[in-house]
């Protein structure tokens, strides 16, 4: 295994009329070839801004990538995505990195047919001519499970159902056989039975194409069957990262423990009260000076209010950013 993407100390801010929003405050992670990383967190935790920053899709202004680097590897050579020019980035987006978003209706162009939108990417990145692109598009549509691909080629997005639109988005994303697929809450707007179809499709394509996947979600359930690594974010920071089994078996950060406790699981009997995390998510209007979770944390002590806990290993393939050892009931 070799790394394909290495993100270090990413800081992204937004200038708004109310002040500066500190959306991402020093995020670092590695992605290895063919691996699936899930980024989990609630709204406003910075999970989407993190990947939009990597893709350089943050509108500037108001957004600003303050610092950090994002190395994309090509064999031994590497390039910092945050330093590339716009034409170079265009080559990477849709070429080496494919992406799908939550709402396919706003991501697809309503006045172009589905086929044209997929073919566009083939013409642009792979230099195919119109006929080749059309033929290849029909193959792609069939591959993502759209019935009647020849007929569907000339349909417009509004003629597709939600699940079919997401399939079309996936076809665009994988058109140029990317090495990384970034999926930002791709199933949140879908019904569970359709969600199961889409997750199943991505799993198949991942093995077929050997892609690495970054899957962003707020749903710890979906991630359990999909990810190799899970990274939990809170207040623009990574608070815990672990190999998927360890995260669910022995969550270490009080926030992760709370999130898992708040889930009503089908495998548990529902007589108990759900564990709720009191309070509300952080406002992000000030740069973090202490643990972002401290105001809602029942384990918080003096130190949590004085410094930001660094993300440190607590075991094999398991890192946590917390001063308190929840299992032992005392600070580390």
């Amino acid at each position, binding site marked *: 295994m070799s790394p394909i993407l290495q993100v270090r100390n990413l800081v992204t801010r937004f200038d708004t009329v109310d002040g500066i929003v500190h959306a991402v405050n020093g995020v670092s992670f590695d992605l290895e070839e063919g691996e699936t990383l899930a980024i989990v967190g609630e709204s406003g935790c910075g999970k989407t801004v993190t990947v939009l920053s990597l893709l350089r899709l943050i509108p500037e202004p108001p957004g600003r990538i303050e610092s950090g680097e994002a190395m994309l590897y090509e064999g031994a050579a590497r390039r910092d995505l945050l330093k590339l020019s716009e034409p170079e980035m265009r080559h990477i987006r849709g070429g080496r990195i494919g992406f799908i978003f939550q709402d396919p209706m706003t991501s697809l162009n309503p006045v172009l047919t589905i086929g044209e939108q997929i073919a566009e990417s083939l013409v642009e990145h792979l230099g195919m001519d119109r006929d080749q692109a059309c033929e290849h598009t029909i193959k792609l549509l069939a591959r993502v499970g759209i019935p009647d691909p020849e007929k569907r080629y000339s349909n417009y997005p509004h003629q597709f159902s939600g699940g079919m639109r997401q399939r079309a988005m996936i076809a665009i994303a994988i058109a140029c056989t990317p090495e990384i697929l970034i999926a930002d809450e791709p199933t949140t707007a879908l*019904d569970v039975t359709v969600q199961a179809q889409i997750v199943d499709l991505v799993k198949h394509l991942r093995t077929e194409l050997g892609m690495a996947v970054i899957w962003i979600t707020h749903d710890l*359930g979906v991630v359990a069957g999909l990810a190799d690594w899970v990274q939990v974010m809170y207040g623009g920071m990574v608070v815990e990262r672990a190999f998927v089994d360890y995260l669910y078996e022995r969550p270490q950060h009080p926030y992760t423990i709370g999130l898992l406790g708040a*889930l009503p699981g089908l495998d548990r009997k529902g007589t108990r*009260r759900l*564990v709720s995390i009191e309070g509300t998510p952080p406002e992000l209007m000030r740069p973090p000076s202490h643990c972002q979770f401290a105001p809602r944390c029942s384990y918080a002590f003096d130190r949590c209010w004085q410094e930001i806990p660094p993300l440190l290993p607590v075991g094999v393939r398991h890192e946590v950013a917390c001063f308190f050892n929840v299992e032992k009931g005392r600070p580390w």
Partner: protein
Amino acid sequence: MTDDRKVLVRVEDLKKHFPITSGIIFSRRVGAIKAVDGISFDIHQGETLGLVGESGCGKSTTGRVILQLYRPSSGRVFFQGMELTALSDGELRLLRPKMQMIFQDSYAALNPRHSVGKIVGEPMVIHGVASGRELKERVAELLALVGLNPAWVDRYPHEFSGGQRQRVGIARALALHPSFIVCDEPVSALDVSIQAQVVNLLQELQERLGLTYLFIAHDLSMVQHISSRVAVMYLGKIVELASRDELFDTPLHPYTQSLMSAVPVPNPKVERKRRRIILKGDVPSPAHPPEGCVFSTRCPLVIDECSRIEPEYRAVRLGHFVACHRVGPGW
């Protein structure tokens, strides 16, 4: 079984068809969306009946038709023995305090120009149950009851977070001492950690005030958590209804089974071993539901009969109803 308990709400063969019209000046009816198409069930005093289904299955319409926010196309609804479907709007208004609703989108459900105090107090003003100082006291009491600071009466909805706004909606629903509340996806728009807060609040209030809930949701695990009995809807029909434990332990309808198998479990080891029933295609349009069984176009167990004859909704065990040709009486 809960069948010996007092029935608070009874629904009999309820239908709600929305007309599809064509033409701008002379509009004529060209078809109908069969949002709710012949459903029957009881809701017992003090229980939570979960109503679960995917988008467009008619679960929200069911909630609204029960409260007579939409008048049904046919069928009857009884509340405390009174036939709501036979009452005039004026007569209904007298009953409204007893039956309330909590909405999914708390931002849309609260008037942005009214302070929280006015929002929560308004039902009491309209029904003339409190005024002046008494009203203020009652509003403060309600805010405290749902876990909000009573000092916030003069704040406006935009000053609250999603979870807090949902609490305001709950306080308003409780203002007139209702006995029955339709909760229409009350936590779907909230973050996981906030969902738990609101669900716990709803359960506490039910225990303290003896409320009866119709809990509408698409999240099966949330429905399992909160309900005493669960009804599963598909394309305007109830396909299965049973007590919570029975439904989740032995689901009989193939749709219920596939719905359950589609819900991801937050446990990687279980997930890896699970065998999913993955349904093909999408839900058909309620304007043109399939002949026979509505689920026949996607059903993994479909036989000839299913596309010709509509399966009867019947009890296969005490309190366990199912509408499927493939479920025999011996199950």
